[in-house]
């Protein structure tokens, strides 16, 4: 059982590090997805371990929300790309004076 959890932790860490160090918005986005799926894995594992369906239910919720989030996130990225010709997250810092 702990192997699944370990894998989940590794995946989550990879995703988190990716979010923190990468500049390309697409990559960052993918890393976010990676973190979500690492979480899903953890949910399912715990669900199995405890023998009830709460964890699986949560995983489904996460998937639905993630799908919605992907749609909106990609739309933002594309519109930024259209106006600024870049997908670097560091370039989108216009609110800072």
């Amino acid at each position, binding site marked *: 059982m702990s192997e699944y959890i370990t894998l989940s932790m590794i995946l989550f860490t990879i995703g*988190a590090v990716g*979010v*923190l160090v990468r500049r390309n918005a697409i990559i960052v986005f993918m890393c976010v997805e990676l973190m979500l799926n690492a979480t899903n894995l953890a949910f399912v594992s715990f669900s199995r371990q405890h023998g009830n369906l709460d964890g699986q239910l949560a995983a489904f919720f996460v998937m639905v929300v993630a799908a919605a989030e992907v749609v909106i996130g990609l739309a933002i990225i594309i519109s930024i790309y259209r106006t600024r010709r870049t997908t670097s*997250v*560091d370039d989108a*810092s*216009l609110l*800072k004076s």
Partner: protein
Amino acid sequence: MLDLQWLLIAIPLASGALLLVWGKESDRFGHLIGTAASAASFVLGVVLFVTLMGEGADDRSHAVSLFTWIDAGTFHVEMSFVYDQLSALFVLLITGVGTLIHVYSIGYMAHDERRRRFFAFLNLFVAAMLTLVLAGDYLVLFLGWEGVGLASYLLIGFWQHKPSAAAAAKKAFVVNRVGDIGMALAIMLMFAQFGTSAIAAVNAAAPGATDTVTTSLGLLLLLGACGKSAQVPLQSWLLDAMEGPTPVSALIHAATMVTAGVYLVVRSNAIFDASEVARTAVIIVGLVTLLAGAWIGCAKDDIKKALAGSTMSQIGYMMLAAGLGPAGYAFAVFHLITHGFFKANMFLGAGSVMHGMDDDVDMRHYGGLRTMMPVTFATFGLGYLAIIGVPPFAGFWSKDKIIEAAFGQNLWVGLGALLGAGVTAFYMTRLMIMTFLSEKRWREDVHPHESPRVMTWPLIGLAALSAVGGVLLLGDWIVEWLEPVVGHAEHHELAVPAIVLTLIITAVVAVGVVAAVAFYRREPIAGETPADDSVSLFARAGRHELYGNELNDALVVRPTTHLTRLLVWFDGKGIDGFVTGTADRLGDTSQLLRKPQTGYVRSYALMMFAGVAIVVLCLLAVTLA
């Protein structure tokens, strides 16, 4: 008939207001309206006076209340006026001398483009002064008191383009405020003690009041009187006030307004009768001022300032007389009236001289004017004889009586007053010699000439009054006339007969004249004022007005300035420092908080992770513990 007394005030007040609001087209005839208003007041004053004389001696006091001025709870003030023996004399003096000075001003101010405004202010002054002397309530009196202060301020600073005139006006105003505090406090005290500020009621209640109350009332009123009448220690504004046009000096700063303090003391006689201390204070103030003014008059080369010193000194005589109690009140008023005649006469004469000398006021540049200005010389000469007290001119009778009364009070007070008479003779003779006699010392481009008739006729009128003003004393008329107002005086027998004292006074006056002649005829008078270090200490002190300004500076102005600086510093560094300091610290903190806001999504994400990590660690710590 006597209920028409309010018209005395209303006429000049309306005229003054009219002249101020009427436009430029009234420039041509505005001065005539102003003069006519003053003359109308005078005519009415004479009619009222004759009516009053027709009344029985016991009901010559006519009170009239126009309306309720203030009615708040127990505080009740009527806009009331009282026309009695005392105010009747003042009304005649103010409107009579005032009208002559209005006429004179037509000529004196002929070339001033703001002449209409000048007459408006003169009318305003006459109205305020009449309010002061007719008031039946101390608060109404205060209204007139402040009104004459305002008119005085406006007229001293009439030539406001001169910084010295503007400064002198401000000084007069500020010094008068000090005195006014005394007046205001006195009125408050009256209300607190007697529940009213009506003059008749206060005078009726004063004899029954405690010593503390009457003494404080007397001293507070004296403070007010000192401010208005330029008595020591509030004398410093009067000499500077000579910056105003000369008719103003004659009307306000010689004949009428500056005597308001004396009027106040005489009017409040019941208060002063009840307090020995206050009376003594009045005597001391009067005596000190009469000597100080005479001293200053001896040393000044500016003809108007020499006369102003003399005014101080003569008002000192009046104060002294007023401080003597019932024995002196009538003589104070008598001297006030004769002084109004001869001093207005001499001020207008000085104005006439200045008119012919291109507005030069330095007597060192005069000399030998008697042939060039015969009328001015003759009228001024009569004023001169009156002020030094040569019999039978007006000043002789009034001053003689005051000195006699002073000897009746105290030997030293009498001697001081006697000395003052000698010094008066000295400085007035000096002024006469330097101006009209002696050799001529004019500047090259000056062509002295006699003034126009519109100016000389008032001079002649006032000179005549200076000569015959003494008739008021005929058969002790003025003493008996004022007795119902100021009370009866027991006659003190002096150690020497009155006639001997009169002879002594006249001898002292003669000594003063002879000394001045000996001093100023001995050698030609210098054309320029000698330097300070070449004259005696005595003359130097007089020239610097006995260092009164320096004293004020050291005692009041400089400490106040330092205190203000300290307060400004405290305000800037302390209060402002606290407020701006707080804001600055908040700003600095914000700057610190601003640092993490880099604008990079990654750094925000890192912070979020860090935050989550911390929360998780805390949860773990709590759970495991």
